[in-house]
């Protein structure tokens, strides 16, 4: 009974979304507010119904309703309570429900915030958002029905993918999906601007904070994904350039480009066409990411089940891009830019270069990700495009971006005078060069590492120069130091939020550079009581213990880590799940600011007399998480509502 209710709710929601999309559009074209009001009610109805779907599916998980196929595949009687809830979105069907629910939530917030404004764009925004929702509801009702029955009803289910049994399962997908679905809002405003012909700056002003919110959640999702990879997947890394990581990274890159290029439009009324295109591209890439994860065309750690769903997403993606291109062509005249500039040495140029590099990086990632398909289609030869490739081609682009991160915020608009350049960059360049010399003198061999660190110092110095200059100006006005600094952050929250984000990126860069350049590892087989040594650490094998958990069997080794004195006992494990062919690694680690000690258990003798262990000393990795926290704080600061100076 309950599953049938769920299916029915999805079908009614689909009908409502379609009605709402048509009603809002008709209301806008014929000037009948009653229809727009009806579309609002439809959107509210969709939200309620999708919430009901979500609740019913969760209920089916909680009561172990194995007559529902999705429940039977993704849970079993041993699955703990907590993972029965997160398991709801642990695979394809449920994840689409979560996705649709978030879209409905965003739509509701858009209605609450913008309905009073009665702006010309508003009904069309509703149309676009309800159309996107209708697509996802179509997927739920036709391509991936979560409430499909299973006969005969099994006595027990298969169980959740063990890698998903982690607290990260609540934060990582939720943040990432909030980012992905959040991109729909600026996209809807962009399309509405094109449809109404109001391609001026209104849609940019209206969606500025929406875009930062989406970017904030995308960043958070990526960072938590990195942390998850580091502490669950057991390979000692945080980013594998896996196709699906790439799928989430591409919209992040284009959204970052958009956040920068809108400033040119706000300030100088240029790049209108380009900004529209960037938002459309970002939205298209979120769809492409969903397609990659859910179609099974590319093997990946994140691959969901396969089926006809890929065709759905690809068709919708094509539809979105064609519609957008047609609209762009239709409004071409209104969009042709009238840019003017006094000098090539100006902030406009810095922003344009920033955009080129970000888009080139996104394109590189895209092409690398789909190249295996291309190679198989053209040559019939399977190739892999993995981390060594992506690192090699992207590092130069990212280093150039970091350099621009120092230049962009301080160089003057229109024309940078020699005086502006000298005042802004003399000290930072000097400090950067000195840092490069110092790092080389300290014996850092890798040129890339020296370059990355020196650039980091340079950009940090530009931020310091700007902040101290602005603070001193306030001090001269008679403010005290701390209120002056606080006032700067609050009054100019977008600018200084941006600086804090940049600072976060610099800290992440430090962590990535350190972990790439200086991490060491070794692998060895130890008898009980024997010890291995690496980078000043001594790791002694003390024996194995086996325990029976609710849904798996766990063998853990005890390893005493010391460096002169005993630091801790680490217990890396192997977990044997009945539904999995090979055991799952459970790593153990000791985190530190300078370095992490990270252990992965390999083969072991059944009597516990010996075990193979992979021992890693990962350098500066903690700074990636610290930088991530700084970055998200900066984004939050930039999201705060503008506070104008009291008159």
């Amino acid at each position, binding site marked *: 009974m309950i599953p049938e209710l769920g299916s029915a709710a999805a079908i009614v929601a689909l009908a409502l979304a379609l009605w709402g999309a048509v009603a809002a559009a008709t209301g806008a074209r014929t000037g009948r507010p009653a229809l727009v009001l009806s579309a609002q009610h439809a959107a509210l109805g969709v939200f309620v119904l999708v919430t009901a779907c979500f609740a019913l599916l969760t209920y089916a998980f909680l009561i172990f309703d194995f007559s529902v196929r999705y429940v039977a595949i993704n849970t079993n009687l041993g699955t703990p309570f907590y993972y029965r809830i997160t398991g709801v979105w642990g695979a394809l069907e449920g994840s689409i429900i979560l996705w649709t629910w978030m879209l409905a939530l965003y739509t509701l917030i858009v209605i609450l915030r913008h309905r009073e404004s009665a702006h010309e764009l508003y009904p069309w925004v509703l149309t676009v958002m309800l159309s996107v929702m209708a697509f996802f509801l179509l997927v739920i009702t036709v391509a991936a029905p979560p409430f499909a029955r299973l006969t005969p009803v099994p006595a027990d289910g298969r169980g959740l993918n063990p890698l998903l049994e982690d607290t990260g399962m609540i934060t990582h997908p939720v943040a990432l999906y909030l980012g992905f679905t959040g991109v729909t809002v600026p996209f809807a405003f962009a399309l509405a601007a094109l449809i109404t012909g109001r391609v001026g700056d209104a849609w940019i002003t209206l969606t500025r904070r929406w875009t930062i919110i989406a970017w904030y959640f995308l960043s958070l999702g990526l960072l938590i994904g990195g942390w998850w990879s580091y502490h669950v997947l057991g390979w000692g890394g945080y980013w*594998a350039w896996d196709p699906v990581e790439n799928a989430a990274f591409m919209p992040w890159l284009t959204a970052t480009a958009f956040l920068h290029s809108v400033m040119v439009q706000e300030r100088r009324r240029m790049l209108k066409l380009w900004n529209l295109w960037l938002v459309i591209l970002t939205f298209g890439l979120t769809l492409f990411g969903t397609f990659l994860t859910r179609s099974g065309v590319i093997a990946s750690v994140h691959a969901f089940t396969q089926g006809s769903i890929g065709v759905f997403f690809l068709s919708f993606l094509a539809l979105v891009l064609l519609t957008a291109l047609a609209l762009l062509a239709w409004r071409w005249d209104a969009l042709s830019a009238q840019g003017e*500039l006094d000098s090539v040495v100006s902030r406009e140029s810095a922003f344009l270069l920033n955009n080129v590099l970000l888009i080139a990086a996104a394109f590189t990632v895209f092409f690398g990700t789909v190249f295996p398909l291309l190679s198989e289609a053209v*040559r019939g030869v399977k190739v892999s495009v993995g981390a060594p490739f992506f690192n090699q081609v992207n590092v130069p682009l990212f280093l150039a971006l970091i350099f621009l991160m120092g230049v962009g915020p301080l160089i003057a608009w229109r024309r940078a005078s020699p005086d502006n350049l000298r005042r802004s960059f003399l000290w930072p360049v000097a400090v950067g060069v000195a840092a490069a010399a110092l790092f080389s003198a300290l014996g850092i061999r890798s040129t890339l590492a020296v370059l990355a660190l020196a650039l980091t110092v340079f950009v940090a110095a530009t931020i310091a120069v700007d902040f101290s200059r602005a603070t001193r100006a306030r001090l001269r006005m008679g403010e005290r130091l701390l209120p002056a600094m606080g006032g700067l952050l609050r009054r100019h929250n977008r600018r200084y939020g941006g600086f804090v984000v940049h600072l976060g990126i610099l800290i992440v860069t430090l962590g990535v550079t350190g972990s790439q350049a200086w991490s060491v590892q070794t692998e060895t087989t130890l008898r009980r009581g024997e010890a291995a040594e690496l980078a000043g650490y001594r790791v002694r094998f003390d024996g194995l213990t086996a325990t029976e958990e609710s849904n798996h069997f766990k063998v853990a080794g005890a390893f005493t880590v010391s460096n002169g004195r005993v630091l801790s006992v680490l217990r890396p494990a192997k977990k044997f799940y009945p539904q999995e062919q090979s055991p799952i690694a459970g790593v153990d680690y000791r985190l530190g600011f300078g370095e992490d000690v990270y252990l992965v258990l390999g083969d072991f003798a059944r009597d516990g007399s010996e075990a193979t262990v992979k021992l890693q000393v990962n350098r500066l990795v903690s700074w990636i998480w610290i930088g991530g926290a700084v970055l998200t704080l900066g984004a939050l600061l930039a999201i705060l509502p503008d506070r104008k100076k009291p008159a």
Partner: protein
Amino acid sequence: MRARAPLLGLALALVLAAGAAAQARRVAEQQVQDVAAQLRCVVCQNLSVADSPSEMASQMRAIVRERLEAGEAPAQVVQYFVERYGEWILLSPRRHGFNLLVWAMPAVAVAVGFTLVGLVLVRWTRRGAAAGRVAATPVDTAMRDRIRRELEP
């Protein structure tokens, strides 16, 4: 006579093998890692043999170490895996033939982007300069006079 040739061959192989064994050297962990990092773990998804915690990867690392210790060059070890598993085993496609496309694409993207931006900037600055010239001469002096007049008491 005819039977001797294979025997001789075998003897030769044994001698060579013994020579290789004599040359067997301690191979630094780093060298094993460097080779393993280029290879894809065949049972995992997108993890290198160096990184993967799976048993298969651990066996593959052991093969890498054995072959390096037997005196093979890193490139030969890599080639051994390519012959067994195909090009797919390499995490970074070899730079020849069709694969050049994926290697060239980033540079092409950057070059095209920079060219476009260059063209746009040239157009903008020309327009800016034209607008500046028009604005600079007559308006500036007229404006200055007006301001002066209005400032005078």
